């Protein structure tokens, strides 16, 4: 079975690329980590998965993800939307979700300051809403992952949009404990095809069960985050 290739974008301030790279490789991907300045838009078709990982791209200046969005527009033009339109898969984690939400691939939403006004670093229970998402295929309906963000409160153009996202499954994940005040407790969004997923929690920080806060945790062979990367790997490898 051919190993699918993933490209992990790195912006000034991205800091979770190492962990995400490791998680992708552990799942079986061939990965490349490239600074945005050297990404050639004509090569995106060489990859099956584009990944935007966590961190503080451009210091979160202006607002989280905005300067990365502008840099993508300037350097890559429509190449990422073209990649997605041609059947490519995209994953955005935390700051990567903030970036994905701004480049127009996910349903309209913004991630604003947590309702507490503070950076929050903790574990959260999550509920899988989307039934068709290839990133979540082997995850149970309820699981937990760590979060670490200041701007993770999801808001939609109209409050009723969020309820619609949950009803239709565009809200791929919801929080079991809505600590950041997200509308309809949304923790992650997918596009209508399920080929693009953005989520605030960090799956790459729970790929080994020993990363769990409970040293005796043994609900699965690996940490829950591993199954997200494994799910998308297996789907892409099977369709090579």
């Amino acid at each position, binding site marked *: 079975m051919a190993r699918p290739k993933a490209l992990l974008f790195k912006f000034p301030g991205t800091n979770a690329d190492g962990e995400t790279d490791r998680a992708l490789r552990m799942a079986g991907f061939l990965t490349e980590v490239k600074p945005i300045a050297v990404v050639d838009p004509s090569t995106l078709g060489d990859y099956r998965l584009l990944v935007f990982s966590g961190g503080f791209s*451009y*210091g979160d*200046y*202006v*607002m989280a993800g*905005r*300067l990365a969005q*502008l840099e993508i527009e*300037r350097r890559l033009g429509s190449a990422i939307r073209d990649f997605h339109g041609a059947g490519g898969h995209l994953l955005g984690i935390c700051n990567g979700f903030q970036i994905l939400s*701004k480049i127009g691939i996910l349903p*309209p*939403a*913004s*991630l*604003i*300051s947590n309702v*507490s*006004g*503070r950076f929050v670093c903790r574990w959260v229970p999550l509920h899988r809403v989307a039934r068709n998402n290839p990133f979540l295929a082997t995850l149970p309906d309820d699981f937990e992952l760590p979060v670490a963000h200041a701007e993770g*409160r999801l*808001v*939609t*153009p109209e409050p009723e949009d969020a309820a619609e996202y949950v009803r239709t499954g565009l809200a791929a994940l919801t929080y079991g404990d809505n600590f950041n005040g997200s509308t309809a407790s949304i923790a992650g969004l997918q596009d209508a095809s399920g080929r693009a997923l953005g989520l605030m929690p960090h799956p790459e920080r729970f790929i080994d069960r020993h990363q769990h806060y409970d040293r005796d945790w043994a609900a699965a062979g690996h940490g829950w985050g591993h199954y997200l990367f494994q799910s998308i790997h297996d789907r892409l490898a099977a369709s090579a």
Partner: protein
Amino acid sequence: MRVVYEISGKYDKPARCGGLVNSSIDPGVTYQHSRIYEFTFEGDSAALESFVRHCLFDEIGQVLTRDPGTPPGLSLLLEVGMKPGSLDLEKEAILSVHRARPESGFTLSALRLRQRYCFFGQVTESTERRLVRDLVNPAIQTHTLERSA
């Protein structure tokens, strides 16, 4: 020409100041935060506003106000910006975005950024000192304070 834009959170409400400072503070004092962008420019003001809307503003989660006033009930206004000559990375990033758009329709001659904190309630002199101490880094930042009459 000179124009000032304020960008604030659409969902922000006056919040207790505990989230701003490093130790407990009078719970009766609340605040709201916004960003101030002061442009000195030549050219098309509509093009400048278009730039602001595309590059600095998010219509889903924010409110954009041109030439903002002060909110009712204000007790204390604190504005914090970088000292002249200090490296202001946010400003440099915005200037870089503007330079990458030679057809933007305006020329920037100056850009000044400030964080604006509006405080409500009874702000004592002691609380004011605490807020300034925790919110301003005097090595690289400058600030202005304005008490409402």
